[in-house]
């Protein structure tokens, strides 16, 4: 079953094309990662799925239904820029957000009790939001998106600004709602999170889809042109190896892009320095992202002149 269907969606703001002929299918029950550099059209796409913005052309369906009100009641949404009513108590806020989704108070209270225990907010339930720490407020925000037990959860940069402990709590919560059958679509800049958590990943760049598939599918499209090495010697030397077209230095580990036979590369390397680690692999999502989104030399020239 399909949770979200985007069929040739285009959205313009004045002369700027924010999303260009985008088609996408998000399977129900999956964790779907939405990646792309800033300004590539991610948030605009998410807003269109929620019917906050309407596309100029194309068709959007949520669980097979194109109607706006149905979409809104089935979707939990955590926008990237988010805030809470400072004077409201946590309980009143969660009830309000739940009721806006059309849920009866009884069901909302059951959900409140469940989540409040899970994320350790019990003592704060009747305190005003302004009394909470930043981390606590972020967790309340997350719970407010889940409180209506949505069939589809849309999270725009859910991990941005979270400390590792709260990020872990959030990740566990996302995985738990996924186990209950909720489809999750989230956008992120954190490629490691996308690699670890997502069943499928889509990347949009300049309003157009440039990647769509499972991590394996995406990586195999980019082949085994990547070698991770750790050597006991100067890193600069790696650039002069035959067949190496690029070096990405991670400090402890170096990622080489090369063309040719890996065995020949290993022989050449061993001849020069002691090799501590040598692994032929797919490019990481991070590497693929950078390869797509890195500005061309022409763009760099323009921006330095501009």
């Amino acid at each position, binding site marked *: 079953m399909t949770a979200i269907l985007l069929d040739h969606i285009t959205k313009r703001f004045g002369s700027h094309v924010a999303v260009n002929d985008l088609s996408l299918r998000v399977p129900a029950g999956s964790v779907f990662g939405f990646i792309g550099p800033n300004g590539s059209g991610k948030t605009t796409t998410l*807003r269109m799925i*929620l*019917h*906050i*913005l309407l596309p100029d052309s194309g068709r959007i369906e949520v669980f097979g239904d194109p109607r*706006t009100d149905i979409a*809104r009641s089935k*979707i*939990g*949404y*955590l*926008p990237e*820029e*988010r*805030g*809470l*009513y*400072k*004077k*409201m108590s946590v309980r009143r806020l969660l009830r*309000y*957000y739940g*009721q*806006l*989704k*059309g849920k009866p108070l009884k069901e909302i209270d059951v959900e409140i009790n469940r989540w409040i225990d899970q994320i350790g907010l019990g003592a704060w339930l009747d305190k005003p939001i302004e009394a909470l720490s930043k981390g606590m407020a972020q967790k309340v925000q997350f719970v*407010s998106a889940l409180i209506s037990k949505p069939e589809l959860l*849309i999270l725009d940069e859910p991990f941005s600004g979270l400390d590792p402990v709260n990020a872990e709590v959030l990740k566990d919560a996302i995985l738990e709602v996924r186990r209950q059958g909720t489809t999750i679509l989230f956008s992120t800049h954190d490629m490691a999170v996308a690699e670890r958590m997502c069943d499928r990943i889509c990347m949009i760049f300049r309003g157009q889809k440039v990647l769509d598939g499972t991590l394996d599918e995406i990586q195999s499209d980019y082949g085994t042109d990547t070698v991770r090495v750790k050597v006991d010697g100067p890193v600069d030397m790696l650039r002069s190896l035959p067949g190496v077209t690029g070096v990405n230095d991670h400090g402890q580990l170096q990622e080489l892009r090369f063309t040719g036979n890996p065995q020949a590369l290993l022989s050449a390397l061993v001849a020069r320095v002691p090799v501590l680690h040598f692994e032929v692999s797919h490019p990481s999502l991070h590497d693929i992202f950078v390869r797509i989104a890195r500005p061309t030399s022409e763009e760099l020239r323009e921006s330095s002149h501009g």
Partner: protein
Amino acid sequence: MGRVFTIARSEFITAVRARGFLIGIMLMPILFGGAVLLQRVVDRQANGILRHVAVIDDTGELYSRLSEAAAAWNRGERDTGPKVTDGPRFTLEQVTPAGDRDALRLALSERVRGQDLYAFVEIPAGLLQGDGRATLMYYSGAPAYRELPDWLQRTVLKEVVTRRFENAKVSPLVVASLLKPISTEEMGLLGRDPDGSVRAARPTDRVRVIGIPVAFMFLLFLIVVMTTPQLLNAVLEEKMSRISEVLLGSVTPFELMLGKLLASTSVSAVMTLVYLTGAAWTAHRWGYLDAIEPRMIAWFVFFLLLSVLIYGSMFIAIGSACSDLRDAQSLMTPAMMILLVPALTWTLVTRAPHSASAVAISLFPPATPFLMLLRLALPERPPAWQVGLGVVLTILTMLIIVWAAGRIVRVGLLMQGKAVRFGEILRWVRA
């Protein structure tokens, strides 16, 4: 509609629970009541002061008459009206005119400064000798207090006129009877009852014909001023603290706006109930309950609804188009100016309700709810066609403003960071 009610309920609870609401709702009666009370306290205190006046009588004849008149005044006998039980008291002190006059005046001035005297007065001899240029000279440090100099002038004048008549061998008693003033009774207009009989005119009662109509208009004005600009703050706060987008994930911008308007209408309804109950109680106490007609309450509620919708939508639209308070201030000024039109023109309408300018301004839709309400409450009501035209124009304006505000909110709520221009807002409406 369910979501609209959810928003309205939450906004209503937030509004009435806020400390400012109770303070705001109490503030008006406290301010009005306090002003009346303060006036009374000040009057009583002012009356309690003994006003000691030094009199330099160059005529040598008038002091004794003044002194008698002061005694009668202090017993509460007024030359201007019925006897009173309390009031200011005047005591006089005769100062013999001798030596250097300027030195005497200076000495008396010092006594006034030292609060030994309240004022002093010079009665020139010329007054009794027919010198047309002779002037009563009154010296005091508190020129705003009129009662004493006015009394002095009346009393001296009366005495001087009596002397003039005596000199002309005319009996003052005859003159008094010849000059006896006539009185005027102000009446309303006659009308015809539905059964055809002539309805008699009633004596004009200023509370009934002006006071209550103006009170109706200002009550409406006050409730609109106290409730609708708050919507701007509420929307702007939601936008600035990034709550708007969370809400837009659940409701349409129009539902959000309707919910807020409904909440504002409910808050106004609560205030109306409180104030009208208070007004009815006060009117009952003073015997004016019958002057608060049910038709006027119905018109009040109708115009309240229209004005809350017009100004509420206007302020919501401004709040959603702005990104910070400074932007909002500059866009709010024109809206406030329009809102102030009735407060600046109501005197024109009460003085000449059927004049072309009063009719025109009461048909200016943003002012119609206030000024047509006032005209409907005045004794001579506006013709039905004017009321009908006013109502139709205002309803049309309300629909256009609500519609335009809906368009502005839809775009404005998602705009962040940049100051918006008026032209740009118009483009959002047309888009």
